[in-house]
Protein backbone atom coordinates (compact mmCIF):
# COMPACT_ATOMS: atom_id res chain seq x y z
CA UNK A 1 0.00 0.00 0.00
CA UNK A 2 2.61 2.52 1.14
CA UNK A 3 4.89 1.37 -1.64
CA UNK A 4 2.10 1.75 -4.20
CA UNK A 5 1.31 5.28 -3.09
CA UNK A 6 4.97 6.21 -3.09
CA UNK A 7 5.53 4.84 -6.57
CA UNK A 8 2.41 6.47 -8.05
CA UNK A 9 3.40 9.75 -6.49
CA UNK A 10 6.96 9.54 -7.80
CA UNK A 11 5.67 8.67 -11.27
CA UNK A 12 3.18 11.54 -11.25
CA UNK A 13 5.49 14.20 -9.85
CA UNK A 14 8.90 13.29 -11.19
CA UNK A 15 8.87 10.54 -13.76
CA UNK A 16 6.16 11.75 -16.18
CA UNK A 17 7.57 15.28 -16.63
CA UNK A 18 11.09 13.90 -16.98
CA UNK A 19 10.12 11.19 -19.43
CA UNK A 20 8.36 13.87 -21.49
CA UNK A 21 11.73 15.57 -21.62
CA UNK A 22 13.54 12.41 -22.63
CA UNK A 23 10.87 11.61 -25.20
CA UNK A 24 11.09 15.08 -26.76
CA UNK A 25 14.85 14.81 -27.09
CA UNK A 26 14.68 11.27 -28.45
CA UNK A 27 12.49 12.56 -31.28
CA UNK A 28 15.45 14.65 -32.36
CA UNK A 29 17.45 11.67 -33.45
CA UNK A 30 20.93 10.93 -32.16
CA UNK A 31 23.00 13.00 -34.57
CA UNK A 32 20.88 16.14 -34.21
CA UNK A 33 20.87 15.68 -30.47
CA UNK A 34 24.61 15.23 -30.33
CA UNK A 35 25.19 18.30 -32.50
CA UNK A 36 22.97 20.39 -30.23
CA UNK A 37 24.47 19.00 -27.05
CA UNK A 38 28.06 19.56 -28.14
CA UNK A 39 27.46 23.07 -29.43
CA UNK A 40 30.27 25.18 -27.98
CA UNK A 41 27.98 27.65 -26.22
CA UNK A 42 26.03 24.77 -24.67
CA UNK A 43 29.16 22.96 -23.50
CA UNK A 44 30.48 26.14 -21.93
CA UNK A 45 27.17 26.82 -20.19
CA UNK A 46 27.11 23.26 -18.81
CA UNK A 47 30.72 23.53 -17.69
CA UNK A 48 29.97 26.82 -15.91
CA UNK A 49 26.82 25.46 -14.27
CA UNK A 50 28.37 22.28 -12.95
CA UNK A 51 31.72 23.90 -12.15
CA UNK A 52 30.32 26.75 -10.11
CA UNK A 53 27.81 24.49 -8.37
CA UNK A 54 30.62 22.11 -7.42
CA UNK A 55 32.84 24.93 -6.15
CA UNK A 56 29.98 26.48 -4.18
CA UNK A 57 29.06 23.11 -2.64
CA UNK A 58 32.69 22.64 -1.54
CA UNK A 59 32.75 26.08 0.08
CA UNK A 60 29.46 25.31 1.76
CA UNK A 61 30.74 22.01 3.12
CA UNK A 62 33.65 23.75 4.84
CA UNK A 63 31.78 26.72 6.25
CA UNK A 64 28.48 24.92 6.73
CA UNK A 65 30.20 22.31 8.94
CA UNK A 66 31.90 25.05 10.96
CA UNK A 67 28.64 26.98 11.29
CA UNK A 68 26.74 23.86 12.34
CA UNK A 69 29.45 23.10 14.92
CA UNK A 70 29.17 26.57 16.40
CA UNK A 71 25.39 26.29 16.55
CA UNK A 72 25.54 22.88 18.22
CA UNK A 73 28.39 23.41 20.65
CA UNK A 74 28.57 27.09 21.56
CA UNK A 75 26.30 29.24 23.63
CA UNK A 76 26.22 32.92 22.81
CA UNK A 77 23.66 35.71 22.92
CA UNK A 78 21.53 35.81 19.78
CA UNK A 79 22.19 32.16 18.97
CA UNK A 80 18.54 31.52 18.16
CA UNK A 81 18.53 34.44 15.74
CA UNK A 82 21.64 33.14 13.96
CA UNK A 83 20.04 29.71 13.86
CA UNK A 84 16.91 31.13 12.23
CA UNK A 85 18.96 33.20 9.78
CA UNK A 86 20.50 30.04 8.36
CA UNK A 87 17.13 29.17 6.84
CA UNK A 88 16.61 32.55 5.16
CA UNK A 89 18.05 31.45 1.79
CA UNK A 90 15.32 28.76 1.77
CA UNK A 91 12.57 31.35 2.08
CA UNK A 92 13.87 34.43 0.31
CA UNK A 93 12.80 34.76 -3.35
CA UNK A 94 16.01 33.95 -5.17
CA UNK A 95 15.69 37.02 -7.38
CA UNK A 96 15.80 39.19 -4.26
CA UNK A 97 18.95 37.45 -3.15
CA UNK A 98 20.47 37.88 -6.60
CA UNK A 99 19.72 41.59 -6.75
CA UNK A 100 21.01 42.13 -3.19
CA UNK A 101 24.24 40.27 -3.91
CA UNK A 102 24.73 42.11 -7.19
CA UNK A 103 24.30 45.46 -5.46
CA UNK A 104 26.89 44.45 -2.85
CA UNK A 105 29.44 42.98 -5.22
CA UNK A 106 29.10 45.32 -8.21
CA UNK A 107 32.27 47.39 -8.76
CA UNK A 108 30.53 50.36 -7.10
CA UNK A 109 28.86 48.29 -4.35
CA UNK A 110 29.91 48.09 -0.69
CA UNK A 111 32.03 44.98 -1.04
CA UNK A 112 32.75 45.28 -4.76
CA UNK A 113 34.31 48.72 -4.29
CA UNK A 114 36.68 47.29 -1.68
CA UNK A 115 37.69 44.40 -3.91
CA UNK A 116 38.02 46.43 -7.11
CA UNK A 117 41.36 48.10 -6.14
CA UNK A 118 42.76 44.60 -5.52
CA UNK A 119 41.84 43.66 -9.05
CA UNK A 120 39.16 41.20 -7.93
CA UNK A 121 35.98 41.31 -9.94
CA UNK A 122 33.06 39.39 -8.50
CA UNK A 123 29.84 40.56 -10.08
CA UNK A 124 29.35 39.56 -13.72
CA UNK A 125 31.97 36.80 -13.51
CA UNK A 126 31.83 33.06 -12.62
CA UNK A 127 33.06 34.06 -9.14
CA UNK A 128 29.80 35.97 -8.72
CA UNK A 129 27.87 32.85 -9.66
CA UNK A 130 29.76 30.88 -7.00
CA UNK A 131 28.89 33.48 -4.38
CA UNK A 132 25.20 33.39 -5.27
CA UNK A 133 25.23 29.56 -5.11
CA UNK A 134 27.05 29.60 -1.77
CA UNK A 135 24.24 31.79 -0.49
CA UNK A 136 21.40 29.55 -1.65
CA UNK A 137 23.17 26.29 -0.77
CA UNK A 138 24.34 27.03 2.77
CA UNK A 139 21.23 25.89 4.66
CA UNK A 140 21.35 22.47 2.98
CA UNK A 141 24.71 21.63 4.52
CA UNK A 142 24.00 23.17 7.92
CA UNK A 143 20.63 21.50 8.29
CA UNK A 144 21.81 18.03 7.29
CA UNK A 145 24.95 18.08 9.44
CA UNK A 146 23.49 19.75 12.51
CA UNK A 147 21.28 16.90 13.79
CA UNK A 148 24.08 14.35 13.37
CA UNK A 149 26.45 16.62 15.28
CA UNK A 150 23.93 16.93 18.07
CA UNK A 151 24.00 13.14 18.31
CA UNK A 152 27.76 13.07 18.85
CA UNK A 153 28.28 12.54 22.50
CA UNK A 154 30.70 14.80 24.29
CA UNK A 155 31.95 11.52 25.75
CA UNK A 156 33.36 10.44 22.39
CA UNK A 157 35.65 13.48 22.42
CA UNK A 158 36.56 12.82 26.04
CA UNK A 159 37.31 9.21 25.20
CA UNK A 160 39.70 10.34 22.48
CA UNK A 161 41.38 12.74 24.92
CA UNK A 162 41.85 10.06 27.59
CA UNK A 163 43.55 7.90 24.95
CA UNK A 164 46.02 10.72 24.37
CA UNK A 165 44.54 12.41 21.30
CA UNK A 166 45.12 16.16 21.05
CA UNK A 167 42.41 18.48 19.76
CA UNK A 168 43.54 18.27 16.15
CA UNK A 169 43.65 14.44 16.20
CA UNK A 170 40.23 14.32 17.84
CA UNK A 171 38.70 16.49 15.14
CA UNK A 172 40.45 14.96 12.15
CA UNK A 173 40.33 11.30 13.18
CA UNK A 174 37.23 11.01 15.32
CA UNK A 175 34.72 13.80 14.75
CA UNK A 176 34.95 14.53 11.02
CA UNK A 177 35.05 10.91 9.81
CA UNK A 178 31.95 10.24 11.87
CA UNK A 179 30.19 13.05 10.06
CA UNK A 180 31.08 11.86 6.55
CA UNK A 181 27.64 10.52 5.54
CA UNK A 182 25.86 13.67 6.67
CA UNK A 183 28.44 15.92 5.03
CA UNK A 184 28.03 13.99 1.78
CA UNK A 185 24.27 14.39 1.90
CA UNK A 186 24.65 18.11 2.53
CA UNK A 187 27.12 18.38 -0.33
CA UNK A 188 24.80 16.53 -2.70
CA UNK A 189 21.83 18.72 -1.81
CA UNK A 190 23.79 21.98 -2.09
CA UNK A 191 25.32 20.83 -5.37
CA UNK A 192 21.97 19.80 -6.86
CA UNK A 193 20.43 23.06 -5.79
CA UNK A 194 23.33 24.95 -7.36
CA UNK A 195 23.05 23.17 -10.70
CA UNK A 196 19.37 24.01 -10.99
CA UNK A 197 19.57 27.54 -9.54
CA UNK A 198 18.35 30.29 -11.83
CA UNK A 199 16.84 33.31 -10.09
CA UNK A 200 19.72 34.52 -7.98
CA UNK A 201 22.40 33.74 -10.55
CA UNK A 202 21.11 35.61 -13.58
CA UNK A 203 21.36 38.95 -11.80
CA UNK A 204 24.93 38.61 -10.59
CA UNK A 205 26.35 36.53 -13.46
CA UNK A 206 26.31 39.12 -16.19
CA UNK A 207 25.33 36.25 -18.49
CA UNK A 208 28.15 36.61 -21.01
CA UNK A 209 27.96 33.68 -23.42
CA UNK A 210 30.97 31.34 -23.05
CA UNK A 211 32.03 33.10 -19.81
CA UNK A 212 29.27 33.48 -17.26
CA UNK A 213 26.19 32.06 -18.89
CA UNK A 214 24.63 29.17 -16.96
CA UNK A 215 22.84 26.25 -18.59
CA UNK A 216 19.37 26.98 -17.14
CA UNK A 217 19.57 30.51 -18.63
CA UNK A 218 20.62 29.13 -21.99
CA UNK A 219 17.55 26.88 -21.92
CA UNK A 220 15.33 29.91 -21.33
CA UNK A 221 17.07 31.78 -24.15
CA UNK A 222 16.49 28.87 -26.56
CA UNK A 223 12.86 28.69 -25.49
CA UNK A 224 12.41 32.39 -26.16
CA UNK A 225 13.85 31.78 -29.62
CA UNK A 226 11.25 29.01 -30.04
CA UNK A 227 14.23 26.67 -30.49
CA UNK A 228 12.62 23.83 -28.55
CA UNK A 229 14.94 21.04 -29.74
CA UNK A 230 18.04 22.87 -28.45
CA UNK A 231 16.36 23.64 -25.13
CA UNK A 232 15.36 20.00 -24.74
CA UNK A 233 18.83 18.75 -25.58
CA UNK A 234 20.51 20.94 -22.96
CA UNK A 235 17.92 19.92 -20.40
CA UNK A 236 18.41 16.24 -21.16
CA UNK A 237 22.18 16.50 -20.78
CA UNK A 238 21.80 18.32 -17.46
CA UNK A 239 19.38 15.67 -16.31
CA UNK A 240 21.72 12.80 -17.09
CA UNK A 241 24.81 14.40 -15.53
CA UNK A 242 22.91 15.42 -12.42
CA UNK A 243 21.35 12.02 -12.01
CA UNK A 244 24.65 10.18 -12.36
CA UNK A 245 26.40 12.46 -9.88
CA UNK A 246 23.62 12.30 -7.31
CA UNK A 247 23.37 8.56 -7.73
CA UNK A 248 27.08 8.10 -7.07
CA UNK A 249 26.95 10.36 -3.99
CA UNK A 250 23.92 8.44 -2.75
CA UNK A 251 25.74 5.15 -3.13
CA UNK A 252 28.77 6.37 -1.18
CA UNK A 253 26.46 7.68 1.46
CA UNK A 254 24.40 4.51 1.78
CA UNK A 255 27.60 2.51 2.04
CA UNK A 256 29.05 4.62 4.84
CA UNK A 257 25.70 4.82 6.61
CA UNK A 258 25.45 1.06 6.62
CA UNK A 259 28.95 0.75 8.03
CA UNK A 260 28.65 3.33 10.76
CA UNK A 261 25.15 2.28 11.66
CA UNK A 262 23.45 5.65 11.86
CA UNK A 263 19.83 5.51 12.81
CA UNK A 264 20.17 2.06 14.37
Amino acid sequence: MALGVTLSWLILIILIPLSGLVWRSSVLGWSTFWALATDERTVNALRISFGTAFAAALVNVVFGVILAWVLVRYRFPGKRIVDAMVDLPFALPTAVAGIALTTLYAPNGWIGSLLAPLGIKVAFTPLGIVIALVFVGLPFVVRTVQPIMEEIDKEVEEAAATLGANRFQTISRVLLPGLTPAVLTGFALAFARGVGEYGSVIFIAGNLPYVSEIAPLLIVIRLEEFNYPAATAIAAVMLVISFVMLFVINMIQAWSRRRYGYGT
Partner: protein
Amino acid sequence: MEVRVQNIRKEFGRFPALNDVSLDIRSGELIALLGPSGSGKTTLLRLVAGLETPTDGTIYFGDEDASRKTVQQRNIGFVFQHYALFRHMTVLDNVSFGLKIRPAGRRPSTADIRRRAMELIDLVQLSGLEKRYPAQLSGGQRQRVALARAMAVEPNVLLLDEPFGALDAQVRKELRRWLREIHDRTGHTTIFVTHDQEEALELADRVVVMSKGQIEQVGTPDEIYDAPISPFVFGFIGQSNILPVRVENGQLWIEDRSIGISAPGEDDGDAQLYFRPHDIELLDGSGGCIAGLVTASRRVAGTRHVELDIVASQGKVEIELPPEKTATDRSRIAFRPTRWKLFRN
Protein backbone atom coordinates in the same frame (compact mmCIF):
# COMPACT_ATOMS: atom_id res chain seq x y z
CA MET B 1 50.06 2.75 40.27
CA GLU B 2 49.03 4.20 43.60
CA VAL B 3 46.75 7.21 43.46
CA ARG B 4 46.43 9.77 46.23
CA VAL B 5 43.67 12.34 46.33
CA GLN B 6 44.48 15.17 48.75
CA ASN B 7 41.99 17.73 50.06
CA ILE B 8 40.17 18.00 46.75
CA ARG B 9 37.45 20.57 46.45
CA LYS B 10 35.41 21.08 43.30
CA GLU B 11 32.75 23.68 42.65
CA PHE B 12 30.59 24.02 39.57
CA GLY B 13 29.76 27.71 39.57
CA ARG B 14 28.67 28.18 43.15
CA PHE B 15 27.58 24.59 43.60
CA PRO B 16 30.05 22.54 45.67
CA ALA B 17 30.28 19.09 44.08
CA LEU B 18 33.13 17.85 46.27
CA ASN B 19 34.12 19.19 49.64
CA ASP B 20 37.63 18.49 50.97
CA VAL B 21 37.90 14.88 49.84
CA SER B 22 41.01 12.82 50.56
CA LEU B 23 41.51 9.23 49.53
CA ASP B 24 44.47 6.85 49.18
CA ILE B 25 44.15 4.18 46.53
CA ARG B 26 46.63 1.34 46.68
CA SER B 27 48.45 0.04 43.66
CA GLY B 28 46.62 -2.83 41.99
CA GLU B 29 43.47 -2.31 43.99
CA LEU B 30 39.92 -2.53 42.63
CA ILE B 31 38.02 0.19 44.42
CA ALA B 32 34.39 1.27 44.09
CA LEU B 33 32.99 4.77 44.53
CA LEU B 34 29.45 4.20 45.71
CA GLY B 35 26.75 6.76 46.40
CA PRO B 36 23.42 8.13 45.29
CA SER B 37 23.29 10.49 42.32
CA GLY B 38 24.64 13.91 43.21
CA SER B 39 27.05 12.47 45.77
CA GLY B 40 30.08 13.56 43.75
CA LYS B 41 31.37 10.10 42.85
CA THR B 42 31.51 10.72 39.10
CA THR B 43 33.06 14.15 39.67
CA LEU B 44 35.81 12.53 41.75
CA LEU B 45 36.47 9.98 38.99
CA ARG B 46 36.60 12.69 36.32
CA LEU B 47 39.00 14.72 38.47
CA VAL B 48 41.37 11.76 38.72
CA ALA B 49 41.11 11.37 34.94
CA GLY B 50 41.81 15.04 34.31
CA LEU B 51 38.48 15.58 32.55
CA GLU B 52 37.73 18.16 35.25
CA THR B 53 40.10 20.50 37.08
CA PRO B 54 39.87 20.73 40.87
CA THR B 55 39.03 24.07 42.46
CA ASP B 56 41.49 23.16 45.19
CA GLY B 57 43.67 20.24 46.21
CA THR B 58 46.12 17.84 44.62
CA ILE B 59 46.06 14.42 42.97
CA TYR B 60 49.18 12.27 42.99
CA PHE B 61 49.96 9.36 40.67
CA GLY B 62 52.72 7.62 42.63
CA ASP B 63 54.94 10.47 43.80
CA GLU B 64 54.12 12.65 40.83
CA ASP B 65 51.73 15.56 41.04
CA ALA B 66 49.24 14.67 38.33
CA SER B 67 46.86 17.55 38.92
CA ARG B 68 48.96 19.86 36.75
CA LYS B 69 48.92 17.43 33.83
CA THR B 70 46.36 17.40 31.04
CA VAL B 71 44.14 14.41 30.50
CA GLN B 72 46.32 13.38 27.55
CA GLN B 73 49.50 13.40 29.66
CA ARG B 74 48.04 11.42 32.55
CA ASN B 75 47.89 8.19 30.59
CA ILE B 76 44.73 6.82 32.10
CA GLY B 77 42.11 4.46 30.74
CA PHE B 78 38.52 5.65 30.97
CA VAL B 79 35.39 3.62 30.29
CA PHE B 80 32.13 5.51 29.89
CA GLN B 81 28.64 4.35 30.78
CA HIS B 82 27.47 4.69 27.18
CA TYR B 83 30.64 3.14 25.70
CA ALA B 84 31.67 6.23 23.68
CA LEU B 85 33.14 4.03 20.95
CA PHE B 86 34.26 5.56 17.65
CA ARG B 87 31.51 4.28 15.41
CA HIS B 88 33.27 4.80 12.11
CA MET B 89 36.06 2.49 13.24
CA THR B 90 36.15 -1.28 13.49
CA VAL B 91 36.68 -3.00 16.82
CA LEU B 92 40.36 -3.41 15.93
CA ASP B 93 40.74 0.29 15.02
CA ASN B 94 38.96 1.34 18.19
CA VAL B 95 41.30 -0.73 20.34
CA SER B 96 44.43 0.41 18.46
CA PHE B 97 43.47 4.10 18.46
CA GLY B 98 45.39 5.10 21.59
CA LEU B 99 48.61 3.55 20.26
CA LYS B 100 48.21 4.73 16.66
CA ILE B 101 47.93 8.40 17.56
CA ARG B 102 51.11 8.48 19.63
CA PRO B 103 53.88 10.70 18.30
CA ALA B 104 56.29 8.76 16.10
CA GLY B 105 58.94 8.44 18.83
CA ARG B 106 56.71 6.61 21.30
CA ARG B 107 54.59 4.73 18.81
CA PRO B 108 55.08 0.97 18.52
CA SER B 109 55.44 -0.45 15.01
CA THR B 110 52.28 -1.17 13.05
CA ALA B 111 52.76 -4.90 13.56
CA ASP B 112 53.23 -4.45 17.32
CA ILE B 113 50.12 -2.29 17.58
CA ARG B 114 48.13 -4.90 15.78
CA ARG B 115 49.46 -7.73 17.89
CA ARG B 116 48.78 -5.88 21.11
CA ALA B 117 45.25 -4.94 20.02
CA MET B 118 44.50 -8.53 19.01
CA GLU B 119 45.75 -9.77 22.40
CA LEU B 120 43.37 -7.40 24.16
CA ILE B 121 40.46 -8.34 21.90
CA ASP B 122 41.23 -11.91 22.82
CA LEU B 123 41.37 -11.01 26.52
CA VAL B 124 37.90 -9.45 26.35
CA GLN B 125 36.67 -12.52 24.46
CA LEU B 126 35.80 -10.81 21.21
CA SER B 127 38.14 -12.75 18.92
CA GLY B 128 36.67 -13.02 15.46
CA LEU B 129 34.70 -9.80 15.83
CA GLU B 130 37.66 -7.44 15.28
CA LYS B 131 36.39 -6.36 11.85
CA ARG B 132 32.91 -5.49 13.09
CA TYR B 133 31.70 -1.95 13.63
CA PRO B 134 30.27 -0.92 17.01
CA ALA B 135 26.76 -0.72 15.52
CA GLN B 136 26.98 -4.45 14.83
CA LEU B 137 27.67 -5.39 18.46
CA SER B 138 25.47 -5.88 21.51
CA GLY B 139 25.69 -3.55 24.49
CA GLY B 140 27.80 -5.97 26.52
CA GLN B 141 30.19 -6.51 23.60
CA ARG B 142 30.52 -2.76 23.07
CA GLN B 143 31.47 -2.24 26.69
CA ARG B 144 34.11 -4.94 26.40
CA VAL B 145 35.55 -3.15 23.35
CA ALA B 146 35.61 0.04 25.40
CA LEU B 147 37.52 -1.74 28.15
CA ALA B 148 40.04 -3.21 25.70
CA ARG B 149 40.52 0.22 24.14
CA ALA B 150 41.17 1.75 27.56
CA MET B 151 43.67 -0.97 28.50
CA ALA B 152 45.59 -0.71 25.21
CA VAL B 153 47.53 2.36 26.33
CA GLU B 154 48.89 0.55 29.44
CA PRO B 155 47.16 3.09 31.68
CA ASN B 156 48.49 4.18 35.07
CA VAL B 157 45.00 3.73 36.40
CA LEU B 158 41.80 2.38 34.90
CA LEU B 159 38.69 4.47 35.56
CA LEU B 160 35.19 3.15 34.92
CA ASP B 161 32.13 5.37 35.13
CA GLU B 162 29.02 3.25 35.80
CA PRO B 163 30.38 0.72 33.30
CA PHE B 164 27.39 -1.61 33.52
CA GLY B 165 24.75 1.04 34.00
CA ALA B 166 23.32 0.81 30.50
CA LEU B 167 23.14 -3.00 30.36
CA ASP B 168 20.33 -5.32 31.38
CA ALA B 169 20.51 -7.29 34.59
CA GLN B 170 21.69 -10.62 33.16
CA VAL B 171 24.55 -9.18 31.10
CA ARG B 172 25.49 -6.94 33.96
CA LYS B 173 25.98 -9.88 36.35
CA GLU B 174 28.10 -11.72 33.80
CA LEU B 175 30.29 -8.70 33.01
CA ARG B 176 30.75 -8.01 36.69
CA ARG B 177 32.27 -11.42 37.35
CA TRP B 178 34.30 -11.13 34.19
CA LEU B 179 35.68 -7.69 35.10
CA ARG B 180 36.89 -9.12 38.40
CA GLU B 181 38.68 -11.89 36.49
CA ILE B 182 40.30 -9.43 34.11
CA HIS B 183 41.40 -7.29 37.01
CA ASP B 184 42.96 -10.24 38.80
CA ARG B 185 44.80 -11.17 35.63
CA THR B 186 46.06 -7.73 34.59
CA GLY B 187 46.42 -6.07 37.99
CA HIS B 188 45.59 -2.53 36.84
CA THR B 189 44.75 -0.12 39.64
CA THR B 190 41.04 0.31 38.96
CA ILE B 191 38.49 2.81 40.23
CA PHE B 192 34.87 2.32 39.28
CA VAL B 193 31.82 4.38 39.99
CA THR B 194 28.46 2.80 40.69
CA HIS B 195 25.19 3.55 42.40
CA ASP B 196 24.47 -0.17 42.65
CA GLN B 197 25.55 -1.34 46.09
CA GLU B 198 25.34 -5.00 45.18
CA GLU B 199 27.81 -4.36 42.38
CA ALA B 200 30.17 -2.45 44.66
CA LEU B 201 30.06 -4.99 47.50
CA GLU B 202 30.47 -7.98 45.21
CA LEU B 203 33.21 -6.62 43.00
CA ALA B 204 35.46 -4.27 44.93
CA ASP B 205 38.40 -4.81 47.25
CA ARG B 206 37.38 -1.66 49.02
CA VAL B 207 34.28 0.50 48.83
CA VAL B 208 34.16 4.28 49.21
CA VAL B 209 30.68 5.40 50.26
CA MET B 210 29.99 8.99 49.26
CA SER B 211 27.20 11.40 50.02
CA LYS B 212 26.71 15.10 49.31
CA GLY B 213 30.23 15.70 48.09
CA GLN B 214 31.92 13.94 50.98
CA ILE B 215 33.33 10.53 51.77
CA GLU B 216 31.23 8.86 54.45
CA GLN B 217 33.23 5.68 54.88
CA VAL B 218 36.02 3.72 53.24
CA GLY B 219 36.36 0.02 53.92
CA THR B 220 36.16 -3.55 52.72
CA PRO B 221 32.69 -4.71 51.69
CA ASP B 222 32.41 -6.56 55.03
CA GLU B 223 33.34 -3.50 57.05
CA ILE B 224 30.91 -1.34 55.11
CA TYR B 225 28.05 -3.78 55.60
CA ASP B 226 28.74 -4.96 59.14
CA ALA B 227 30.14 -1.83 60.72
CA PRO B 228 28.67 1.26 59.10
CA ILE B 229 30.01 4.32 60.85
CA SER B 230 27.26 6.78 60.00
CA PRO B 231 23.46 6.77 59.78
CA PHE B 232 23.81 7.49 56.07
CA VAL B 233 25.93 4.42 55.38
CA PHE B 234 23.68 2.25 57.52
CA GLY B 235 20.62 3.46 55.67
CA PHE B 236 22.17 3.43 52.20
CA ILE B 237 23.76 -0.02 52.30
CA GLY B 238 21.34 -2.92 52.55
CA GLN B 239 18.02 -2.84 54.37
CA SER B 240 17.71 -1.17 57.73
CA ASN B 241 15.20 -0.20 60.40
CA ILE B 242 15.31 2.92 62.48
CA LEU B 243 13.57 3.27 65.85
CA PRO B 244 13.72 6.26 68.19
CA VAL B 245 14.87 5.05 71.64
CA ARG B 246 15.98 6.50 74.95
CA VAL B 247 19.13 5.61 76.80
CA GLU B 248 18.85 5.41 80.59
CA ASN B 249 21.63 4.03 82.78
CA GLY B 250 23.03 2.02 79.91
CA GLN B 251 19.67 0.46 79.00
CA LEU B 252 17.55 1.14 75.91
CA TRP B 253 13.90 2.11 76.28
CA ILE B 254 11.05 2.69 73.87
CA GLU B 255 8.61 4.95 75.68
CA ASP B 256 8.05 3.21 79.04
CA ARG B 257 9.30 -0.24 78.09
CA SER B 258 12.76 -1.58 78.37
CA ILE B 259 13.66 -3.51 75.20
CA GLY B 260 16.27 -5.69 76.84
CA ILE B 261 19.31 -4.19 75.11
CA SER B 262 22.08 -2.81 77.21
CA ALA B 263 24.40 -0.20 75.86
CA PRO B 264 27.05 0.26 78.48
CA GLY B 265 28.92 3.53 78.36
CA GLU B 266 26.26 5.34 76.31
CA ASP B 267 25.22 8.73 77.63
CA ASP B 268 21.63 9.14 78.73
CA GLY B 269 19.26 10.78 76.26
CA ASP B 270 17.41 10.23 72.98
CA ALA B 271 19.00 8.21 70.18
CA GLN B 272 18.15 6.32 67.00
CA LEU B 273 18.45 2.54 67.03
CA TYR B 274 19.56 1.08 63.65
CA PHE B 275 19.34 -2.63 62.88
CA ARG B 276 19.01 -4.87 59.85
CA PRO B 277 15.81 -6.91 59.23
CA HIS B 278 17.68 -10.21 59.50
CA ASP B 279 19.74 -9.36 62.60
CA ILE B 280 17.00 -10.22 65.09
CA GLU B 281 15.89 -13.00 67.40
CA LEU B 282 12.26 -13.85 68.16
CA LEU B 283 11.19 -13.89 71.83
CA ASP B 284 8.17 -15.27 73.66
CA GLY B 285 7.98 -13.03 76.70
CA SER B 286 6.45 -9.62 76.98
CA GLY B 287 9.29 -7.91 78.82
CA GLY B 288 12.71 -7.01 77.49
CA CYS B 289 11.70 -7.07 73.86
CA ILE B 290 10.24 -5.02 71.07
CA ALA B 291 6.63 -6.00 70.36
CA GLY B 292 4.73 -5.24 67.19
CA LEU B 293 1.53 -6.06 65.33
CA VAL B 294 1.81 -7.62 61.88
CA THR B 295 0.53 -5.33 59.12
CA ALA B 296 1.89 -7.17 56.09
CA SER B 297 3.76 -10.35 55.33
CA ARG B 298 5.49 -11.29 52.09
CA ARG B 299 7.36 -14.39 51.13
CA VAL B 300 10.58 -13.46 49.29
CA ALA B 301 12.56 -16.50 48.13
CA GLY B 302 13.94 -18.21 51.25
CA THR B 303 12.68 -15.76 53.84
CA ARG B 304 9.47 -14.17 55.02
CA HIS B 305 9.42 -10.37 55.21
CA VAL B 306 7.10 -9.12 57.90
CA GLU B 307 6.10 -5.50 58.49
CA LEU B 308 5.26 -4.55 62.04
CA ASP B 309 3.63 -1.60 63.80
CA ILE B 310 5.55 -1.15 67.03
CA VAL B 311 3.11 -1.32 69.94
CA ALA B 312 4.86 1.09 72.28
CA SER B 313 5.53 3.87 69.77
CA GLN B 314 4.43 5.04 66.34
CA GLY B 315 7.34 3.29 64.60
CA LYS B 316 7.23 0.77 61.78
CA VAL B 317 9.86 -1.89 61.13
CA GLU B 318 10.43 -4.75 58.73
CA ILE B 319 11.99 -7.99 59.91
CA GLU B 320 12.95 -11.21 58.16
CA LEU B 321 11.72 -14.54 59.51
CA PRO B 322 12.18 -18.16 58.49
CA PRO B 323 9.43 -19.03 55.98
CA GLU B 324 7.87 -21.70 58.21
CA LYS B 325 7.05 -19.05 60.81
CA THR B 326 3.54 -17.82 60.03
CA ALA B 327 2.56 -14.23 60.61
CA THR B 328 -1.15 -13.60 60.36
CA ASP B 329 -2.47 -10.07 60.19
CA ARG B 330 -2.69 -8.18 63.49
CA SER B 331 -0.96 -10.98 65.38
CA ARG B 332 1.70 -10.01 67.90
CA ILE B 333 5.38 -10.66 67.38
CA ALA B 334 8.09 -9.94 69.93
CA PHE B 335 11.75 -9.70 68.92
CA ARG B 336 15.06 -8.18 69.85
CA PRO B 337 17.87 -6.98 67.53
CA THR B 338 20.99 -9.10 67.90
CA ARG B 339 23.26 -6.68 66.05
CA TRP B 340 22.52 -3.00 66.13
CA LYS B 341 23.98 0.49 66.29
CA LEU B 342 23.00 3.70 68.05
CA PHE B 343 23.31 7.10 66.39
CA ARG B 344 22.60 10.42 68.06
CA ASN B 345 20.89 13.20 66.15
